[in-house]
């Protein structure tokens, strides 16, 4: 178990709700859930997850820390915001799901093999490297994230789609060498480094 997780366990002993309120983006809203279940019925990936947002919120209040943080349910969020606009208590459910997933990732408790966890990290790394997304490297990174053999299989399965995009002028093979980028890459790196530092301090992650 990681040091950051042990520190969190020691600090919040039996109060997972307080831990979520202090450390998870929009976590202070969790206690406002009235368990109506509209979010559960509004989610496009409803048939696919184990815990609906409604369940996650009650599990947080019941102190089911391991079950919540290791759940793959938050990683099923497509950011469609359907639950947010329908919630009678106006909870920012999408942001809470992202926040919980991010916190689980930070503590090293998120499901390792979840493909969206990997893609999310890949995307942020991709877009912040130069300030702009390199779509070709993003797609290849996704196909090859489970290793070379799996990558070649996936890239082969997607070859017609790739060729179609290439013919339509919507894919640039030369992005493998150099894609679009911001001029002030260095400034972007500096401001992001600062942002991570500040957030660690504010959320109590800093050592």
């Amino acid at each position, binding site marked *: 178990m990681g040091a950051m997780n042990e520190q969190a366990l020691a600090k919040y002993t039996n109060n997972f709700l307080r831990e979520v309120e202090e450390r998870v983006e929009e976590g202070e809203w969790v206690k406002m859930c009235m368990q109506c279940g509209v979010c559960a019925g509004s989610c496009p990936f409803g048939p696919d997850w184990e815990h609906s947002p409604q369940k996650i919120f009650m599990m947080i209040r019941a102190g089911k820390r391991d079950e919540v943080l290791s759940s793959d349910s938050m990683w099923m969020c*497509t950011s469609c915001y359907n639950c947010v606009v329908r919630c009678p208590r106006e909870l920012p459910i999408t942001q809470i799901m992202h926040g919980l997933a991010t916190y689980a990732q930070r503590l090293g408790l998120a499901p390792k093999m979840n493909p969206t966890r990997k893609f999310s990290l890949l995307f942020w790394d991709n877009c912040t490297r130069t300030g702009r997304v390199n779509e070709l490297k993003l797609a290849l990174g996704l196909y090859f994230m489970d290793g070379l053999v799996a990558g070649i299989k996936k890239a082969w399965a997607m070859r017609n789609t790739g060729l179609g995009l290439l013919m339509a002028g919507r*894919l640039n093979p030369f992005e493998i060498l150099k894609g679009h980028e911001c001029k002030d890459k260095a400034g972007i790196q500096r401001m992001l480094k600062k*942002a991570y530092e500040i957030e660690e301090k504010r959320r109590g992650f800093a050592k």
Partner: protein
Amino acid sequence: MAKKEYAFYPGCSSQLKGSASNYLTSVNSMCETLDVKMTPIPDWNCCGASIGYAGSGELARHVMNARNFALADEHLHGQDVVATCAACWLGAKETKEKLGASAQLMADTNEALKEAGLQYKGNTQVRHMVEVLIEDIGYEQLGAPVVKPLEGVKIAGYVGCQTNRPFGIAGESFENPLYLDKLVETVGGEALTKYEQKVTCCGGALAFSEPEKSQAQIKDIVESAYDQGADMIVTPCPLCQANVEIYQSDINKRYGTKFDMPVAYYSQLMAVAYGATPKQAGLDGHIIKPTKLQEIAVKVVPTGKR
């Protein structure tokens, strides 16, 4: 019509040879007709999209969006930022809202931005291109330059998620927004107002990481268009466009369907109706050719109508 000027935030997918490069092509053509001047924000950066959350955390995401606002404010002072991409618009709007509500977040953002020599002052608005069209120009003025009405083209207006939720377009409902249908009618097309998958999620970024689950969504979106007798689907979102168009062949393999439904942008409809060539309207940027639009675009404009 008076010339209108905006600070343009095109977004990553709209760049040259990007997955939505034909969106940008058609927006340029449409804006030229409408006498709207779009000046790209110098050195704009990615909004981080919704999917970057696990790596970004909260503040870094806001800092990325605040950088664009700061650059727009510095170089294109007084102009509203206009995004064509749903995710860019949502990301920027969310940042503006959050920073406006929290002095702490505002101060932290500016402390980080200082590292790039910039400052976020919060005096710049962010709008979606669609808002510019219907609020600043209006349906009537949008209809005025039409030289080739899209007569007889049956169009399913697929609004999707992020242009519609959580912010949406003022005066529209989340469950049944009408602006896309109205835009279709403005350029002479037939809006299929009973199309019931209008606001269904296409899976978004999870079309990449969870293809099976997302393709089940896309299948419903395309199938319903067929049920309504659509010639094509139209959307305001670059990721919706890409997902709904490019995975149809995968879906055909998976489900034994025979989908071949073109998916275009609202700006392409408008460009074609305004007399653009197929190339100017970005019609060469499709895997599934929008043949009905193509046929209209190559027609010669009747003399005297221009």
